Structure formats: C-alpha cells, structure tokens
C-alpha cells in the first residue's frame, strides 16, 4: 500500500479545509461580537452592564430551550414541540404552585420530561419522523394547555418558590442566566466525559451504521427527547418566575427563535455535527436580534427585514459545511 491516506470523499475540499474549519468553529462567537458591536454603534447606551445583563436574563429561557432541542437535532431529528410543552408547563406550574410550593418546580420538570419521553417513544417505536411526531405533539400539547387552563392565564399569587431565579449572582449575573449556562455546561460535560457523545454523533451522522455497531440508538433518541422535554420544563419555570403567571400560549412564540438559535450556532440540522455551546451563542444572537433591534430604534417593519437577513447571513457564516455534504 503505497499511499496510506487517500482522500476518500470526492466532496472533500483539497484547499486547506483545516484553517477554514477552525474559523467556522468560532463563527458563532464572531457573529455574536459583531452583532453587539453593531448594536453599540447604533445606540451607545446599549453597551452598559445593565443592558447586557438584562439581555442575558432575557435570553435565559431561550438558551435552555435551545440547549435541550440541540440534543434532538444532534441525533438527526427535530423537536417542534418544545415551545408548546413549555407553555403547558407554565400552566401546570402556576396551577400546582399553591398546593406543592417548592416541590412544584421539580414535579413540573419531571412531567415535561415524561411528555418528552412519550414523544421520543412514539418516534422510535412507531417509526414516525420526528418532525411529524413533534408537529402533532405541538398541537396536542397546546390543546391540553388550553383545556387545563380554561384558556386563560393562571396567576401566581405567591411566587416565592420560583423567586430565586430573579436573584443576581454576585450582584451582576442574573440567576436565570447562570442556571441556563449551568444547564448548557452540564449537558456539554456529561456528553463529553461519557460515551454519550459518540453515541449521539454516530446516531446523527449515520443511524444505520450506529445501529449496526450496537449503539443503543433508540434509547439515545428517547433520552434526547427526555432532555429536550426537561429543558422545556425548566424554561417554563424561568418564564413563570419572570411573568408571575402561566399561560397556554406563553412560550409558543419561542419555537422558531429556538430552532434559529440552534442553526445560527452552527449545529447541522441534518444531525451529528454541532454542540450545545454553539446553541448558547446562537441563542444570544437571536435574543439580541429580537430585543436589541427595536430597542435601538429600528422601526418594526425594518426590524423584521433585518432579522430575516441577519439570521440567514449568520447561518451562512456559522455552518461548517465541510461536515455536511448535501444541503437541503
């Protein structure tokens, strides 16, 4: 064998994929910094500690939602039910807080985990594409939330059990943001130090190869949906602590931003390639776009146009397409 390393893939790019690859690894961060700078140029008030911590606090639920759903995306699926599940969870939390007090938080997260698990099982056992399962799940969970809440918001009179999320760590970092970052870190570290990382990537890159290597593909997928559900539950707790109430449509509008956050972070929507850290950066970018643009005074019509353009451009920058052969 004269030439040990042959380039196996015709698509592989001969011209220095390494340098470009390293660059795209940092692209989510670069995009984030560029966006902060642009906003600061547009409005000098934006670059203050207060503004930035407020943005961080605002981003917390989105970060958590996106982090959970990232796992499903890494496994090659998609979870469209996260927002509806978070909405339902806010209702459940608001309903249960008076009776359960501090216990309500873990109970709601557990319930959300269980609902995530049900969807995962339906996806795996019935062999329905995750897009469809979670699209259906989205409608069903919304309906349940409407019925359970009587189609109204449920006020939280005594919010002490969830009040802790409104504290500030060290006086600066909002607790909810700290929790969100801890969640991201925990998911990332657990993946990193256990075989889960290679199971998840193998499932996402090539499910059939993973299965024939004896990887517990089905369990990994169900687990991903569980984590996604749990994260939706936690995001709901954050929302309730912020809004002092739970509502059947409260988080619904976070679905597309959460998916956008994942993709803007550079995680491949086809699975395998990506990480929760990337989603963290992506969630911050999306939050800044959602909140920052109107605050610096962009009129709402232009705001939407800019949002669309910037999201597309960010994805173009962050997607490491040397890892993804065909883009659909």
């Amino acid at each position: 064998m004269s030439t040990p390393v042959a380039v196996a893939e015709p698509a592989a790019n001969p011209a220095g994929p390494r340098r470009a690859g390293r660059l795209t690894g940092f692209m989510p961060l670069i995009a984030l910094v560029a966006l902060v700078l642009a906003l600061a140029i547009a409005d000098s008030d934006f670059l203050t500690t207060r503004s930035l911590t407020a943005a961080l606090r605002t981003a917390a639920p989105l970060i958590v939602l996106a982090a959970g759903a990232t796992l499903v995306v890494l496994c090659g699926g998609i979870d469209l039910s996260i927002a509806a599940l978070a909405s339902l969870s806010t209702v459940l939390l608001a309903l249960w807080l008076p009776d359960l007090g501090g216990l309500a938080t873990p109970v709601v997260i557990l319930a959300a985990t269980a609902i995530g698990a049900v969807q995962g099982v339906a996806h795996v056992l019935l062999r329905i594409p995750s897009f469809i399962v979670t699209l259906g799940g989205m409608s069903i969970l919304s309906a349940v939330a409407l019925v359970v809440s009587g189609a109204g918001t449920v006020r939280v009179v005594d919010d002490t059990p969830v009040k802790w999320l409104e504290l500030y760590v060290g006086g600066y970092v909002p607790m909810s943001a700290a929790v969100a970052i801890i969640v991201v870190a925990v998911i990332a570290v657990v993946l990193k130090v256990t075989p889960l990382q290679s199971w998840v990537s193998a499932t996402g890159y090539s499910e059939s190869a993973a299965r024939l290597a004896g990887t517990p593909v089905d369990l990994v997928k169900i687990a991903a949906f569980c984590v996604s559900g749990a994260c939706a539950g936690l995001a709901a707790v954050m929302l309730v602590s912020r809004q002092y109430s739970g509502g059947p449509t409260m988080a619904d509008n976070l679905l597309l931003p959460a998916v956008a956050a994942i993709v803007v972070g550079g995680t491949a929507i086809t699975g395998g390639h990506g990480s929760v850290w990337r989603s963290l950066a992506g969630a911050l970018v999306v939050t800044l776009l959602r909140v920052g643009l109107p605050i610096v005074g962009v009129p709402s019509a232009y705001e939407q146009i800019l949002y669309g353009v910037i999201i597309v451009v960010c994805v173009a920058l962050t997607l490491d397409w040397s890892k993804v052969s065909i883009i659909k």
Partner: protein
Amino acid sequence: MRITPRPAVALLSLTLAAAALAGCSEEAAGDKTATDAGGCKPADVKLVGQVRNESNPYEASWLAGGDAFAKSVGLTQERLTYGGDSTKQQEQISQILAKGDKCLVLNVLPNGDSDTAPIVKGADKAGAYLVTQWNKPADLKPADYKTWVSHITYNGVESGQQIGDALATAIGGSGGIIALQGVLDTAAAKDRFAGLQASLKKNPGVTLLDQQAANFSRAEALTVTKTLLTKHGDKVKAIWAANDDMALGALEALQQAGLSGKVAVAGIDAVPDAVKAVNDGTMTATVSSDGTWQGGIGLAIGFCVATGKLKVADIAAANRAFFAKQFLVTKANAADFSQPKTTASDFECGNVFNRVAGPLT
C-alpha cells in the same frame, strides 16, 4: 463553490446589514441628567409607546396618536411592537428599562392580563412612568405603586351588551345569532362575551346558535363564519363579533354566501372600515374606543407627571384606574366618527382625565 467566496459574501452582507442597522436607527437620547421624580425637563423625557403590531388599523392609529402627542411637546415617540408575543413584550420592556433613563414614560398595551404584573414591577423598580391600557388583573392596582400612574380600559361588558342590543333591535327582537369570540385568553374577549350574554338575557327572543373563537382575526373569522353559516343556514339572523376585524371578516363571508345585507353584523373598536360599513348600512353597529386618543393620552398622563405638572398623589383614586368613555356608533352618528375626534386640548394636563367614564370595578 470554493471555500473563499462564501464567508466573504456572508461577511459583506453582515457589514451591509450592520450599516443599514446603524443607518435606520434613530438618534438616541443623548443628555441624561438625572432628575428627581416629577421634576424632569420636558426635553429630557423619553416617550415610549408599545403595542402588538403596526399591521392592524386600530393599533396603527394608537401609535399615530402617540406620535401626534409627542410632536406637540417637541419630542418623538419610540415605537415598540412585539407581534402579539408576550415573552417578546417582556424582553423589550426589561431591555428598555435597563437603559436607565430617568425620565422614561411608557404607554403600554399589555398582551394579556398576566403580562401586566411583570411590566408594572419592572417599571416600578426602574422608576419609569407607566400607563397601561386594556389588560390588568383585578387585584393589581395602580394605587399601590408610585410610578404606575394610571390604567385605562373600557367597559367590555357594556360594549358587548350595547352591540348585542343593537343587533337585537336590528333583527326585530327575535331570531338566531352566532358569536365570534376573540382570543379566549384575554379579559376583553371574556368581558365582551359576558356583555353579549347579558344582552341575550334582556332579549329573550334572541337565541345564541353557536359561538366559536376566531382570535380577533379577519381571516379566521371568514372561515369560521362560512362554516357556521353552512351549519345553521337560514336560522342565522345576526352575527356578533368581539371586534371589528372579525366583523369585517364575517361581512366578507356573508357576501360570498350571497347573504349580504340579510344578516346583521356588529363589532367593537370602530376601525375606519367598520365605521364606513356602519355608515353604508352594511354593519349595524360598532363601539368606538378611539385608538388615537389612547395612544396620546397614555403618554400625556405620563408626561404631565414626569414634568411635575401633575403629582401622582394629587390624582384622584378613581382616575388611577378607570373606564374611559366609549361611544356606540350606529348609522345615525357614524359620519361623526370618520375622523379622529381628538384635539390637542384633550392632552393638556388639566384635561387628561376628561374622558373618565367611571372607576374600574
């Protein structure tokens, strides 16, 4: 595609986007001399009006009213829209409060009852002057806060009943009607429907054939009405809609079913198209809450307090949370409502509470 052009193209577009961003943003308030509450110089006041979106006539008129008021005092209104997204509304509020302006005046339309509490708490903490409209939970009272100056709303039960009665009269006191409900999760929708039920009690000849939610949307109202018309056929004599957009959607459905003019329709809000329809006789009635006035008055009250011309302590308890006057628009008076009824004098500090119809109950 080689590897080089793509990031280049993308970077270029990002630069363009950033340039556009910087270009279309407005001048930020520069001078920020901290002033004591109630003692702001008029020029230091920052006016913010926040509604759901600019893409419906009612809220567009609200923002226009805000702009008009701001212009009258030599300022500009910062327009915020949150697209009916509760979380986005909170995010915008907390971001704008985080900028730390001392003389901030907010005229806010909370997305739902539950959204009011966090807005109030945030504004209270930041010392911003806040006027809220429409949505507020009953046990949250402006009187308990220092800078939550006032809450303005309209008596939805009353307006729902008024148009219910108008419909009953129009159909001669007997017959079937169908009701198009708003977003079920809002006080406005619930109150207005309660008003309809009260009206039904008063007019025993009128029966409610069906009620469906069409979410304040013209398009949804069209589909729902079509379906209900097929279901109930000739029995439908009138359509009660919880807002004008839905009433206009119902009108289209009637036209498409060839029933134009044969079924009475009424709505609430008095958007220009509805007023025109009432004037033409295609619609029976609507109720005017005067969005232009709402957009201006919220800022006016806040501005008066911020500049010290009004003292929160001096405002009568009844004016801290009140029902504003609303007007039933019928063919008889529709012509009067085709133009905004507000004048600059409405917004003078002495007159800001002239349209109080009664305390919030």
